[in-house]
């Protein structure tokens, strides 16, 4: 590039000759040079601006095109994931405490029809009706030809049925995938599991929702996608549950009862190891709710949780335990038990008009199950303290157990609490609660006096509930209950080696209109075993049992519930890992086991 000088000598000299100012030439040249520089800079800037504009245009068009493509295209699941995320069932499994499956899901198909695509509706109606006997051909044909464009035919299909529908080969018959809830053990633990059914249904999937039992109570947990891979572990033990249901069912037949319930509870953890209610049902094919008759007679009715009964003399131990806790009595305090105990216009008598008088110790009041004696102890305690104690034992509130029916099993308690209620409540009349409430209250005694909340969820930790009574009182109460079995009304309940302690309860069933039936009873046996180191509570309740092996029918719990409970303990205690102690083993004995 040639640089033009600002002061070219030739022009300067000629300008000087003409007498002009040579500086003008310099300024002129300087101006020209500046203009040239400016033009060059502008041109360069224009090019740069153009380039920048193009770049922006390209970037924006790229983004715009991508947005347009995203908006216009079908949404698609991301294919590359950090981990091979498992395709999980939409509802978690339920297992027992040892991991044996109680409820799981099965992949199956639903059948639907699109009549617009159907080639020959008459043939489809005929052949489909042949596969499913409950469908009527004429009805099906009418519905397939009335102009609708979509129709559900079947919620779930077996593989055989699906193959036969395939064989019809009509393009108007289509299948939608379904996840079906399956209870492989049939009727076992049906009242705990409850059941499930389809909620909102679409062609590609349907939601499965719990309809009863723990399926409904824990619905949110079971449907939580984050926990779908981990099964819900219940406290139930399948083997023990099966054994108890078998024994209870046999016992119910032998005792001619119309219903029965049993609860086996771990007193330290509050776990319900078994919960049975008879008659039962199959949750795979849950019957519909009864529309007429007593809902309590339906197999769906959970007698252990919903059945709110007057549980009779099983309550007596609570009055006695409280009196001992308050320091009012000790096991050998003597009471006048001459019947009747008069309270205003009421007269309290003993069972079948017996007379245990004149004097009976507190321990014997429990052993012989004296209404009069318990009534007198309750009067010492007073209604306010009694109500507070029963509340602390959880007998006046619905059980916190994780089945949805527990809410409907709220105990029936009198509105007012006059002295007559204090007396009757002490021996379990005029106040109703479910066997589950009773199990929790007995577990509190067996657990050394701290309250235990019953739960259906597996947990190994001992519950540290609030203290209801001192450990000494609880121990004394268990000792008294042990005497009921060795010397008292529950003598048939003794199982060699397991030191059963318990209390019988025979309560007349209340009539609908008021008053009580003479020949209808609820028999309960609440037991704790082994008495020397309580580990389990077993409640057995029979509804309207009659024991007919003797000369005249017997309706007391000692003859009906107690032998059933004893057989349950004999069968389940070894399964629970309890070793019988048939003879006194010398302490700290060592036996050589090798030579």
């Amino acid at each position: 590039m040639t640089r033009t000088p600002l002061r070219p000598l030739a022009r300067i000299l000629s300008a000087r000759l003409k007498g002009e100012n040579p500086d003008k030439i310099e300024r002129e040249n300087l101006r020209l040079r500046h203009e040239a520089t400016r033009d060059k800079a502008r041109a360069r800037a224009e090019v740069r601006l153009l380039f920048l504009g193009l770049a922006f245009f390209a970037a924006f068009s790229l983004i715009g095109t991508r947005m347009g493509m995203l908006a216009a295209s079908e949404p698609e699941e991301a294919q590359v994931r950090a981990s091979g995320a498992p395709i999980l069932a939409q509802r978690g499994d339920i297992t027992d405490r040892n991991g044996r499956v109680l409820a799981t899901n099965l992949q199956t198909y639903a059948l639907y029809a699109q009549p617009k695509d159907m080639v020959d509706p008459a043939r489809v109606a005929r052949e489909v009706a042949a596969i499913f006997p409950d469908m009527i051909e004429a009805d099906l044909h009418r519905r397939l030809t009335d102009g609708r464009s979509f129709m559900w035919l079947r919620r779930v299909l077996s593989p055989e049925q699906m193959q036969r529908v395939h064989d019809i080969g009509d393009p108007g018959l289509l299948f939608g995938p379904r996840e079906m809830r399956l209870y492989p053990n049939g009727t076992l633990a049906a009242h705990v599991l409850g059941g499930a059914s389809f909620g909102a249904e679409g062609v590609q999937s349907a939601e499965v929702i719990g309809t009863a039992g723990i399926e409904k109570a824990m619905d949110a947990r079971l449907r939580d996608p984050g926990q779908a891979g981990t099964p819900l572990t219940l406290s139930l033990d399948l083997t023990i549950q099966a054994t108890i249901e078998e024994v209870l069912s046999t016992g119910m037949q032998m005792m001619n009862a119309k219903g029965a319930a049993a609860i086996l509870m771990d007193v330290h953890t509050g776990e319900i190891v078994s919960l049975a209610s008879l008659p039962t049902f199959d949750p795979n094919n849950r019957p519909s709710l009864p529309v007429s008759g007593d809902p309590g007679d339906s197999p769906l009715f959970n007698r252990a949780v919903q059945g709110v009964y007057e549980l009779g003399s099983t309550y007596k131990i609570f009055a006695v335990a409280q009196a001992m806790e308050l320091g009012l009595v000790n096991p050998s305090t003597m009471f006048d038990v001459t019947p009747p105990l008069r309270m205003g216009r009421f007269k309290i008598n003993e069972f079948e008009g017996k007379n245990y008088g004149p004097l009976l110790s507190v321990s014997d009041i429990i052993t012989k199950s004296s209404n009069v004696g318990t009534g007198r102890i309750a009067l010492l305690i007073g209604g306010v303290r009694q109500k507070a104690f029963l509340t602390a034992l959880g007998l006046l509130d619905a059980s916190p157990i994780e089945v949805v029916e527990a809410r409907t099993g709220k105990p029936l308690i009198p509105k007012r609490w006059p002295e007559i209620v204090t007396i009757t409540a002490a021996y379990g009349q005029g106040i109703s609660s479910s066997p589950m409430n009773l199990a929790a209250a007995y577990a509190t005694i067996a657990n050394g006096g701290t309250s235990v909340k019953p739960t259906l969820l597996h947990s190994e930790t001992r519950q540290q509930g609030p203290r209801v009574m001192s450990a000494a009182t609880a121990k004394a109460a268990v000792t008294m209950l042990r005497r009921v079995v060795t010397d008292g009304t529950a003598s048939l309940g003794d199982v060699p080696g397991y030191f059963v302690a318990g209390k019988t309860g025979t309560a007349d069933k209340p009539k609908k209109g008021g008053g009580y039936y003479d020949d209808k009873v609820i028999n309960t046996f609440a037991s704790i075993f082994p008495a020397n180191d309580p580990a389990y509570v077993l409640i057995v309740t029979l509804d309207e049992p009659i024991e007919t092996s003797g000369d005249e029918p017997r309706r007391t719990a000692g003859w009906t519930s107690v032998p059933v409970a004893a057989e349950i303990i004999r069968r389940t205690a070894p399964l629970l890992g309890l070793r019988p102690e048939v003879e006194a083993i010398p302490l700290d004995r060592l036996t050589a086991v090798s030579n």
Partner: protein
Amino acid sequence: MRPVLYVATFMAVMALAFWAYRENYATQRALRNVTDLQREITALREALSIQNAEWAYLNRPDRLRDLTALNYDRLGLLPLEPEQFGQVDQTAYPPSTFPAGMLAVSDAVDVGGTQGTLP
């Protein structure tokens, strides 16, 4: 010097383009493979869940009870009862000769009566 740089740059661009082309196809192949594997995993999981359900169904307690009753002659299985608990000294001693390479347990003892005092 400069032409060499141009040629080198051009060669580098070509090499990178070739690499990107190959990577693109390798990625697509891997994605297809992943899809296939996931489909296989799904199918296997489905099969597994069906087999688990069937296992639970075949092992349901009432069926096992019936089977033990049917096969009583061969198996002689009875429900577990309290009488079946015994003391260690009621069982036969293990053989005193041990196969070579196994260490004999010496002076083993069973501690009795630790379940608390009797009422």
